[in-house]
């Protein structure tokens, strides 16, 4: 059994983006030094087996913290874990310069995930991003110069005001930058965000469903043509550069999550940490449990989760892997739904497993939902 991988959540940002549904708060309102202390302490307490396959430090914006604090945290992590094959840090363009990147590289970070989002100034403005188009390009170039081979860029499509042309241009810029990994996310209207309020009040017009779909299909076409492998609904990578940490999620393998609001998943038990920075720090400093919610999943629920997560991957469910992970035979559990969706041309079924067909990808939830629960 491999040890759980490790996720560390930095719930701080310079300013909250209007579309963001993650737990994060403005860095100026908090004491990042104490937070880092608490995080480091929780990492030490949580990681039992140091043979952690992957580490991912995300947020929020890890890079909005002063460099010495980020450095201290990463140092603590590398002191605790050993032998990881992938160590990702999320970085915001505009918040990184050459020395920081150099430092990250030197300490052992081997994958950089850049929140680029768009190469159109107007779209960055709509999204409330604080960086410029140039800063994305600079960040990628600097990262490469200091030795990062594995660089990912996130892009958002279906931004109000965007067009097929602007999206095509964005994809082209990302491809031309030569990054190894590209994630493309449709803009999501999360509950209780200023963006959603603007939409509901009619201040912005969301992109229509048909265009949203065309944009998604364009991404698949352009990126696969450019040699990226489409390996998950929203993720593309040069061969060998798929994000191993995230692949772990979609395989439903165990992981530890550290930091406010982070979730762990070990042996069918999900523990979600307090989503409040001060309370979290208080708990950790006083050696109290920072867990807000524990959820035990039954073997069947776990099997359903695994099916849904596996099907997010383009390779889908692999019969043997699924049996090894869940103890169930996917065909036995889901025979009727598999048959229904196969008949409708939404699933491919063969000796190795099942996977969504290309027409199924844009409407995946209407298929995945049937795997979310077992009828009794």
């Amino acid at each position, binding site marked *: 059994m491999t040890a759980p991988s490790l996720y560390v959540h930095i719930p701080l940002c310079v300013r909250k983006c209007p579309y963001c549904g993650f737990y994060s708060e403005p860095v100026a309102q908090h004491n990042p030094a104490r937070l880092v202390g608490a995080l480091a302490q929780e990492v030490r307490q949580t990681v039992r087996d140091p043979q952690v396959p992957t580490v991912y430090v995300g947020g929020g914006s890890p890079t909005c913290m002063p460099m010495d604090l980020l450095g201290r945290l990463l140092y603590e992590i590398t002191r605790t874990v050993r032998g990881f094959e992938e160590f990702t840090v999320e970085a915001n363009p505009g918040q990184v310069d050459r020395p920081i990147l150099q430092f990250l590289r030197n300490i052992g970070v081997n994958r950089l995930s850049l929140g680029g989002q768009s190469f159109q100034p107007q779209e960055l403005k709509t999204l409330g991003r604080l960086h410029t188009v140039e800063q994305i390009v600079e960040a990628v170039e600097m990262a490469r110069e200091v030795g990062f081979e594995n660089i990912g860029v996130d892009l958002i499509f279906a931004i109000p005001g965007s067009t097929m042309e602007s999206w095509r241009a964005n994809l082209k810029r990302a491809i031309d930058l030569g990054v190894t990994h590209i994630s493309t996310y449709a803009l*999501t209207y999360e509950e209780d965000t200023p963006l959603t309020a603007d939409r509901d009040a009619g201040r912005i017009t969301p992109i229509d*469903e048909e265009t949203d779909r065309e944009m998604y299909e364009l991404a698949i076409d352009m990126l696969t043509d450019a040699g990226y492998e489409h390996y998950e609904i929203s993720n593309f990578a040069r061969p060998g550069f798929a994000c191993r940490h995230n692949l772990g999620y979609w395989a439903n393998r165990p992981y530890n999550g550290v930091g406010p609001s982070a979730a762990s998943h070990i042996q069918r038990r999900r523990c979600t940490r307090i989503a409040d920075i001060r309370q979290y720090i208080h708990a950790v400093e006083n050696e109290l449990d920072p867990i807000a919610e524990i959820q035990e999943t039954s073997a069947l629920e776990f099997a359903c989760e695994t099916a*849904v997560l596996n099907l997010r991957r383009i390779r889908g469910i692999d019969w043997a892997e699924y049996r090894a992970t869940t103890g169930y035979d996917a065909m036995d559990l889901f025979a009727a739904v598999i048959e229904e969706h196969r008949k409708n041309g939404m699933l491919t079924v063969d000796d190795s497993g099942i996977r969504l067909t290309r027409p199924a990808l844009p409407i995946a939830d209407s298929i995945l*939902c049937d795997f979310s629960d077992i009828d009794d």
Partner: protein
Amino acid sequence: MATDHIRNFSIIAHIDHGKSTLADRMLELTGTVSSRQKRDQMLDSMDLERERGITIKASAVTMRYEHEGREYMLNLIDTPGHVDFHYEVSRALAACEGAILVVDATQGVQAQTVANAYLAVHNNVEILGAINKIDLPAAQPDVVGDEIEHVLGIRKNECFRISGKSGIGVPELLEAVVTLLPPPKDRSDEPAAALIFDSLYDEYRGVICYVRVFAGCLKPKQKIRLMGAGRSYVVGELGKFTPQMTPVDQLGSGEVGYVVAAIRDLHDVHVGDTITDDIHPAPKPLPGYVAPMQMVFSDFYPGNMTDYPKLRAAFERLSLNDASFTFIPQNSPALGFGFRCGFLGLLHMEIIQERLERENDVDVVQTAPTVSYEYKTTDGGVKRIDSPSELPDRSAIEEIREPMVKLEIITGVDSIGGIMRLAEGRRCKLVKTDYLSPTRVMLEYTAPLAEIVYDFYDQLKGISHGYATMDYEFLGFEAADLVKIDILVNKNIVDALSLIVHRSNAEHRGRKLLIKLRKAIPRHQFEIPLQVAIGGKIIARESIKPFRKDVLAKLYGGDVTRKMKVLKRQKEGKKRLKSIGMVQIPQEAFMSILDTGED
């Protein structure tokens, strides 16, 4: 007890005019219930009655009353007011010599006041008029008295003025029950003959028959015979309602009470049948009742095929307590195996539906209610159908007949115009107009049941600002220029969506229905064509565009619990839909047939 010391009477009225409240006061005045047991509308004992504040089932109670130093036995039957339950009133009246007709002093004579008064006259029952709710500031006992005299022929100065709520006038009314209503005839020397006027199923005791003894007497251990059914039983227990069931050692001529005789199936007992002595039977049975007629039909299908046996068991249980609701197995090409159920009216349907949901854990898909039709085949035969889908091809039919009713509407004169226009649009023929008073009028129509049974009442209430009331009575089937509309969803006819309408209205209804269906059926992975056909010819079409994008942008480790919930909810939503061919149709879609297209 000697028959001249017995009085049997029903309380009858329009809905909500205060029957059950008056019964409460009488139970109190006679000391039948102690103040500790007391609660409002005592006799409405079913949960549904108490929740809805209406009487659904008639209930009987025996009271002791002193008059001039002698003891009397008063048997009171409280009846429901709603039109769906008229047959309950008829049954109650057949067990009585007298009736108190209650009229709300703020509402005046209403449609069910008239209908129930006619029933009383028809049953040869002596009527006492009671103008109720005189405690209310809006009460107009004089005006209402005039209406009663004019419409029902009960003299104004003979009407009692009462308040069932405060009790004013109730002692006088109770006194009049003894002095003015006739006692039952003394037939104690004749062979036993008791009318079953209601029945009830009790899990432990089996069927409990509510009886009125007309001749002879019944005793425990007596061997009795149900004359109509031709079956014999031994009386286990006899008793009276006080209002709890209280055993007695005999029920004599003229008395009202219950009989328990180890009868396991409610369907073995026909209300209206006569109980007699098995050894010395009565020469002929008492006049019975006409069985109540089911006016509307609707199909119920289990949401999940495997629930079919569960649904059958649920209906069997419900029919044990309600013999006026029918269910027969049904097989629809589109919806699979289910049941066709017959109801006395829409309220009755709602009540059964509610009990089905409440007492059983089955998901059901219900089709829109429909009336029955008759059709005459080209070879002269006449057939009755209670689902439009059963209508054969036009070429095999000579004519289609629809059920007609006598419709009575009572309303203020200011809304006559609006009501007449509504009735006109529903193919109702005005038979007569009768002024109850200078400001209120009674309209009598001959109307197609299908036009008035669903939403007509709501429209009527809307037009008259809530003041108009209506009542209807089945007349017979009559030929009309009717056609069947078929709906095709994804090129398949969905039989449960077929409907029979008048030709003049067919195209409009069809188009309207398509628009409703387009909104009610969720988008699918593919485009769904919707079509309306009359006699195989497509007259209108619409389509439901497929959804194009439905996928979460992100699903990573921290999101799993939340996102799984979202997906489960999406799946739950699908479950409430009925899958027909490849299309999932929600419950509302079946009900959209009921929209008559007026707006």
